[in-house]
């Protein structure tokens, strides 16, 4: 059977590209180094494919159609939003695995919305271009990448519980796929950030560190216990992206995490956290960090 061999949480902050020199030097170097570290760690997992869980920012989908969750099963390109330093182009998808995930979901009560052609936005392209492509260079081979998009930015939002359900279904589908498939899942999202509101530029480090600790502890239940009201009040509308974290965490069997880096960057309007998720050995004790 196939296996999800690991995962990551990482941000997709477009302001990094628009105003690269805005934060202090040490802080911006730490963020770029974190992406490099993620790429090296991704390559070390010897993956054969990647699933990137992102979200629309009211660009791809309008009021006429707002899918709670969607998977790209065919042609993929992007990003649709042009950012200096991000190339727009075709992305190699793993069409067979993506189609299998949809078919598997049909029998599991998970009725994926399907995009047979899909132009992604920066929430896919930043992890893809800063982590997956460098990992491909290290490995000397392509890593087909499947886009999964959850409704984090535009209501009606997908619930945290449903996001976790999807992560579990992704894992079950991969395990029902070809034996030699080694999949890494990336939950793409900032932690605290206020997008387009009066508070934009505020970062809530206490909330961010709470979320990071849940990743380290692999505490999916606590992650899914946040109400939308609490997230919006404490960490802003952008923090609804922790749904992507819940999906990735649920896709890992017996998850645990390691914080690679965290920077609170008001100049980039976001709390930027990088976590590597792994499978805890069956008899390995769970180390619990205070939240």
């Amino acid at each position, binding site marked *: 059977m196939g296996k999800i061999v690991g995962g990551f949480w990482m941000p997709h902050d477009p*302001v990094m590209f*628009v*105003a690269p020199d*805005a*934060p202090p030097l040490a802080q911006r170097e730490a963020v770029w180094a974190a992406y490099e570290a993620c790429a090296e760690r991704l390559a070390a997992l010897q993956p054969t494919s990647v699933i990137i869980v992102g979200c629309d*920012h*009211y*660009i791809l989908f*309008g*009021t*006429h159609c707002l899918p709670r969750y969607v998977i790209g099963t065919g042609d993929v390109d992007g990003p649709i939003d042009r950012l200096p330093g991000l190339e727009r182009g075709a992305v190699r998808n793993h069409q067979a695995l993506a189609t299998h995930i949809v078919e598997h979901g049909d029998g599991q009560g998970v009725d994926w919305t399907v995009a047979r052609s899909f132009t992604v936005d920066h929430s896919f392209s930043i992890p893809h271009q800063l982590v997956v492509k460098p990992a491909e260079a290290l490995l000397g081979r392509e890593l087909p990448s499947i886009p999964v998009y959850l409704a984090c*930015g*535009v*209501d009606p939002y997908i619930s945290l519980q449903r996001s976790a359900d999807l992560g579990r279904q992704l894992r079950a589908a991969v395990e029902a796929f070809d034996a030699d498939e080694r999949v890494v899942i990336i939950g793409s999202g900032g932690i605290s950030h206020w*997008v*387009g*509101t*009066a*508070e*934009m*530029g*505020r970062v809530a480090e206490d909330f961010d560190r709470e979320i990071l600790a849940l990743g380290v502890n692999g505490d999916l239940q606590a992650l899914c216990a946040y109400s939308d009201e609490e997230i919006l009040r404490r960490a802003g*509308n952008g923090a609804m992206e922790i749904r992507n974290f819940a999906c990735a965490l649920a896709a890992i069997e017996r998850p645990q995490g390691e914080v690679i880096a965290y920077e609170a960057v*008001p*100049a*980039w*309007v976001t709390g930027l956290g990088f976590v590597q998720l792994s499978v805890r050995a069956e008899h390995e004790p769970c180390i619990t960090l205070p939240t």
Partner: protein
Amino acid sequence: MSRNVMERALWQLCVERVAKERFRQDAVGFLGRFALEEAEVRMIVEFDVAGLQAAGVNPMLTMGFWQELAPDRNMSLYKQRLGATDEHSAGFSAALKG
């Protein structure tokens, strides 16, 4: 107030080139195709982002609309129009040199 119709109009203005061009030429005329009330048209034409958000419009759309079409696309001004405090404006204003 019709949040759905306002978001429909603003989404088009954020992503569709033809809609942006028509709005620049004749904003009220462009908005005439939507079932908007007079006050809603005024909020859009006047870039009243605070009013739009108070009516429930998604902040991603008000920001995108401002960045695409406001006469002065300065983000500090955008935040001022939303009533941002100096504390909230400091870091982000530096980022966008605005």
